[in-house]
């Protein structure tokens, strides 16, 4: 036991206070402190789908394939891939120079373990749902493997760069077990995890043996600060260097503070109204009138400083599912006319229910209220109810959602299947639209292997859905980000903020 005299202790404490008051000096310019709004659910990256944790995992683990800042699918651990014309298999070639943080080599056996053996052994992993069609992974050599599917799986390459798809070490996991791995995880990523306190702090140190471009910053500290006001205060006081998810007005205000830069970055997250095909919305006139009555540009201006792009399709500009020139007009006169054709007017409004989250994404509840006000002018009276985001799926499964729900859908890949396909597939819990006419087309489109036909199909489905009022896309979501002006980082179209791309 170390014994301390009171004097020594007091001297040490004073010195520590002095040092602690100068964190920026102590940290130097070889590190960065990020204020992040949420924690990882655990350090098994395959286990739970949490979009906000994806960037955190990407610093420690590597994905088989990656995305460029413009979201193009690019090689990563896999250096070449070939999808069979029928979409029934995917041949993969891995890099030969990748090592896990313990020095062991990453091979195709680790890939098979991650995506096949772990799932088959009964481990409860969310990635099992991403690769449902996977029949087996055949190992050809340590650097070659073939994924085989029981039905066409054209989007598997995309999924290999999406949620939860990170390669984990087979030998190490078998040696330390799941709990051992969660306590001391290793990956092949650009940073090693050196300290973690749940809901507190993540400390990462540069992986000096990283196979890819070596990160410029040696140390990345992630402070988990869930309260937006505290994140604002932390960046303003200088105790953190970068943060995301602050209120739009605060991002704009902080952007005017000397030494700080505020950004409103459009990302691959769409805000839309998910729609039922029954109750008051069984009438297409009511659905279309509801859509025509929404002034999306006004919503963007009021809640996102005009940075959120108004959408007419469930896809964002620049992604394959987006159709230039397709517009669903803001036309309150048309809305009034459609409602009148069904016997409704402001004096005799049609009554509907509307669900919204409150705090799930910036200004969600206020936006819902604004939409309700817009509808009232044309003759739609909506009763607003607040739901928890986590309950959306359960309510939808139980057929308990009201006519429409204000919803935010994240698709880091930008692939149209994950937009229109997931949002409109009646068999998935994302879509409250259960009409089989559109539903059968959507389900069939999942099996189209030819890339050109696949994309064209999803574009057509997106337009058809909007034209018939099966969904009402509103805005491309915006990520608010505030950073010190001398901190540079790579801006990803899907909102990833990665320590390995930062430098002073």
């Amino acid at each position, binding site marked *: 036991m170390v014994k301390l005299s009171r004097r020594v202790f007091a001297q040490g404490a004073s010195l520590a206070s002095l040092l602690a008051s100068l*964190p920026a000096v102590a940290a130097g310019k070889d*590190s960065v402190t990020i204020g992040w709004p949420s924690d990882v659910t655990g350090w098994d990256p395959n286990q739970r789908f949490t979009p906000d944790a994806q960037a955190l995992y990407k610093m420690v683990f590597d994905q088989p394939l990656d995305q460029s800042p413009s979201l193009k699918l690019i090689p990563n651990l896999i250096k070449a891939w070939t999808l069979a014309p029928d979409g029934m298999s995917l041949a993969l070639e891995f890099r030969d120079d990748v090592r896990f943080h313990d020095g062991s080599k990453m091979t195709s056996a680790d890939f098979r373990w991650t995506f096949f053996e772990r799932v088959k052994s009964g481990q409860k992993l969310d990635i099992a749902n991403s690769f449902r069609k996977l029949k087996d992974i055949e190992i050809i050599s340590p650097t070659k493997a073939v994924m085989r599917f029981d039905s066409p799986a054209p989007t598997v390459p995309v999924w290999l760069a999406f949620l939860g798809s990170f390669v984990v070490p087979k030998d190490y996991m078998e040696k330390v077990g799941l709990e051992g791995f969660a306590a001391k995880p290793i990956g092949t990523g650009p940073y090693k995890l050196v300290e973690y306190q749940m809901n507190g702090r993540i400390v990462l140190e540069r992986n000096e043996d990283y196979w890819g471009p070596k990160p410029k910053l040696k140390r990345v500290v992630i402070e988990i600060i869930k309260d937006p006001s505290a994140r604002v205060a*932390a960046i303003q006081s200088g105790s953190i260097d970068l943060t995301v998810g602050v209120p739009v007005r605060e991002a704009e205000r902080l952007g005017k503070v000397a030494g700080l830069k505020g950004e409103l970055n459009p990302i691959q997250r769409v805000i839309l109204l998910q729609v039922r095909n029954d109750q008051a919305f069984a009438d297409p006139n009511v659905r279309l009138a509801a859509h025509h009555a929404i002034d999306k540009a006004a919503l963007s201006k009021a809640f996102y400083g005009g940075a959120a792009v108004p959408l007419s399709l469930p896809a964002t500009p620049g992604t394959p599912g987006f159709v230039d020139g397709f517009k669903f007009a803001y036309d309150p006169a048309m809305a009034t006319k459609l409602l009148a054709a069904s016997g409704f007017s402001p004096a005799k409004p049609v009554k509907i229910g509307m669900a919204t989250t409150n705090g799930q994404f910036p200004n969600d509840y206020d936006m819902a209220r604004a939409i309700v006000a817009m509808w009232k002018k044309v003759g739609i009276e909506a009763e607003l109810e607040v739901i928890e985001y986590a309950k959306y799926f359960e309510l939808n499964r139980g057929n308990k959602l009201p006519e429409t729900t204000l919803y935010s859908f994240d698709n880091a890949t930008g692939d149209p299947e994950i937009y229109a396909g997931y949002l409109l597939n009646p068999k998935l819990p994302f879509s409250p639209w259960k009409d089989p006419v559109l539903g059968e087309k959507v389900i069939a489109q999942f099996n189209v292997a030819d890339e050109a036909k696949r994309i064209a199909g999803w574009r057509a489905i997106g337009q058809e859905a909007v034209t018939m009022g099966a969904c009402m896309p509103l805005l491309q979501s915006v990520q608010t980000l505030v950073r010190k002006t001398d901190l540079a980082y790579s801006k990803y179209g899907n909102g990833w903020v990665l320590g390995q791309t930062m430098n002073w």
Partner: protein
Amino acid sequence: MVLSFARRLAAVGPILLVVSLLLFVALRLLPVDPAAMSMPPTATKVEIEAARSAMGLDRPLVEQYAIWLGQTLHGDFGTSIHMRRPVGGLLLETLPATIELSVAAMIVAGLLGIGGGLALFALRNRRGEAVAELTTTLMMSIPEFLWALLFIFLFGVLLSALPFTGRLDPGMTRPVVSGFLLLDALLVGRPDIYASALRHLLLPAAALGIAFAPPVMRVLRTSLVDVYQEDYIRQARLRGVGEARILLAHALKNAILPTLTLMGVQFGFLFGGSLLVEVIYAYPGMGNLMVDAVRNADLPIIQAVALTYCVVVLAITSAVDALVLLLNPRLRA
């Protein structure tokens, strides 16, 4: 009093049992499906039903309660739905931080409360009394989360005097011995970590403690007024004992007892109040865990945290009862 204390101790078990039953039933009545919540959105109905069966949610409620209670008594709080980790481990990881914060907040509340109570007593029937009363009312009417934000703005942003996120400065590695950071810093001989942890603790403890100080002030003031009516105070004055000595050595000793009892009761509220303060200060305690659990309808965590709150409150109440018994010989007669 001794008998009453013994009775109260004996009631702890049944109270916990009733609380656990109420908690279990209340959470099961919520319109939430833990099986569905435990699965990814793309899970099929068949997979959700399989999860429901595996979690025992298809059994009668009484059977579910009996299973849960049996497991809880053996220290098995189940597995978190959202995080898929054993809840017991999550509690062990976060409880020390919350206890540390609550104790620090109680010290703040105690110091402010006793100091303020003495000041209120000294100002009685004087010109400053109205101002002092107004100040305590103001302190009491501002909730702890607002204090938290005010302190962040004042001491964190405006003056840059104190840190307001987490438990340690960046660059410092948390020693893990008992989970109580201040204690661990001493155990590993790291005064720098101790100082940093203390500085990080100041604002959340003050925000949490300040709202609880006014009732202590008022009870102490009233108790002192009552005690000053006693004969022994008059006798002390006749013996020529100074006013300061009368107050601190004679009156306070007796007046503090109801104050202590109040502080014991308040600790429960204070412990509960840590929820929002922990979130605002990014303090990695049990409150932070609970807020996430509520957001994700993570029933096993909600049950375990709520039960832990109950156990801690009962333990503190019992400890305060014992302390009062120890300090007051008349109660032991």
